[in-house]
């Protein structure tokens, strides 16, 4: 394979990995503070991408065509709306079930995901059809041999990196992050330090859901379309990535996300079967990893949870 083509695959893998990592971080944050799996997370991502799309169409109808403003508004609307949705999910669905078995939370969030998915399908105008997603970023490309370096990909990758570094700083350098880590390690002692436990949970769900919205916008920009069903696969991939990385560990989730994208890329490129089987290959490897390391690659015992 020549270097140009190889670079192209690496670039595509990095784009996918960034999206998966952002979704996986959400799963791992929720598990960290509350020991729950929020299975509506993928569908929150999907609603985020539709919120972005609707914001764009609204601005377009108002005649706002300045690109920098458009992309900022789309991102802001999607992340803020999903942060709010995440906090509402935590407040009204997850926290009330705190003393119930974890399976109940899993079931109720699974059902909420279906509600969100079917809600968009039925109530978004022609929501059952795939929607073209606007190219909000400059699509200029610089051909380097067989590799087309696209400006929009580069921008998205940089923005994703900034977001991940931002999450890292938030968790490790701020008082809020300290509270989140304390709650993740020992909920009761955290409460006796004077930490408002419910508030920390709400904020954590807001942060995780905003990250999902960001990934949803990235997904739309990358594929130039979005549809009501994208959350299903992205949710399962994000969850798998979080598990491979060792659920509860942020850095593990990020590594898991990029690892999953790498597996998909290898499955699509290097193996002798059609690229449609890339997910089968990637999930197959995930199953093998889980059989080999049941608690994930970075097990929780040795890793710093959240």
């Amino acid at each position, binding site marked *: 394979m020549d270097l140009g083509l190889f670079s192209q695959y690496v670039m595509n893998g990095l784009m996918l990995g960034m999206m998966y990592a952002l979704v996986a971080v959400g799963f791992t944050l929720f598990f960290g503070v509350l020991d729950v799996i929020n299975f509506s997370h993928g569908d929150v991502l999907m609603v985020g991408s539709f919120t972005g799309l609707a914001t764009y169409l609204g601005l377009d109808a108002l005649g706002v065509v300045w690109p920098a403003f458009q992309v900022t508004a789309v991102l802001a609307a999607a992340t803020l709306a999903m942060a709010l949705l995440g906090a509402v999910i935590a407040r009204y669905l997850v926290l009330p079930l705190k003393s119930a078995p974890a399976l109940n939370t899993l079931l109720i969030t699974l059902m909420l995901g279906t509600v969100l998915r079917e809600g968009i399908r039925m109530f978004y105008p022609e929501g059952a059809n795939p929607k073209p997603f606007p190219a909000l970023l400059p699509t200029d490309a610089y051909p380097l041999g067989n590799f087309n370096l696209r400006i929009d990909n580069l921008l998205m990758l940089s923005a994703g990196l900034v977001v991940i570094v931002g999450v890292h700083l938030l968790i490790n350098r701020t008082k809020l992050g*300290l*509270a989140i880590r*304390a709650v993740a*390690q020992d909920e009761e*002692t955290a*409460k006796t330090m*004077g*930490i*408002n*436990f419910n508030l920390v949970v709400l904020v954590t769900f807001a942060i995780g859901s905003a990250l999902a919205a960001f990934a949803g916008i990235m997904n739309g920009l990358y594929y130039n379309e979005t549809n009501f069903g994208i959350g299903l696969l992205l949710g399962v991939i994000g969850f798998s990535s979080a598990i491979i990385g060792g659920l509860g560990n942020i850095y593990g989730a990020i590594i898991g996300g990029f690892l999953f994208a790498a597996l998909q890329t290898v499955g699509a490129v290097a193996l002798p079967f059609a690229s449609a089987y890339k997910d089968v290959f990637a999930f197959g490897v995930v199953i093998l990893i889980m059989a080999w390391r049941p608690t994930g690659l970075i097990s929780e015992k040795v890793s710093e949870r959240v």
Partner: protein
Amino acid sequence: MSAEIENGLVVEKVHTAYDKADVLEDVSLTAQSGKITCLLGSNGSGKTTLIRSILGLTPPNSGRIVFDGTELTGLPSHRIIATGIACIPEGRKVFPRLTVEENLRLGAYQEKSPKVLADRLEQAYHTFPQLRERRAQLAGTMSGGEQAMVSIGRGLMRAPRLLLIDEPSLGLSPILVKQNFDIIRRINEQNITVFLVEQNVHQTLEIAHHGYVLSKGRIVAAGTPEELGRDREVHRAYFG
């Protein structure tokens, strides 16, 4: 007298059911302002349940808990802490995967002023110089005695008016136990009200101003250390 009782922690006819085994029945006691009040009792007598009830972790089913005139019953834990209470919990409960300094900072979580926080940190390092050298070490990798320092330092970071201390001597060597009791006495000399829950009768009675004995979820004896030292109920609660 009654004004003095108003000032401090008042537990009134508290009933708490917790995991069905460990319960409190009709517990009433007072921890007077500025004094060391102890609660003695053997394992499973309900001592920790009472601490949990005061902190709102296991809210009482009935009865009242009042601190300096503010009713705590029914408040969430962080608002109970906000009234000026700190806790040094049983088993020290340091956050194992946070550094010593992060643990200490969490003790003063509700403190808004960075300057006050820095002063308190300095004070904690002054009290426990070993902790300053190990400020960046993960608390979970320290010895039991060092974790006890972190836990006590963390409780003091709050600059509380009332400090709840749950079994400080548990699992520590006799020398460290003695050090801990000296520290508790010094804490009290800074005019911090101390409510001390212990199994260790002799050392506790040496520093306490007033004490209660809890057995099977009920208060069975109360009085000054001298009275309790002679009391048969005390012996029965432990050995009978």
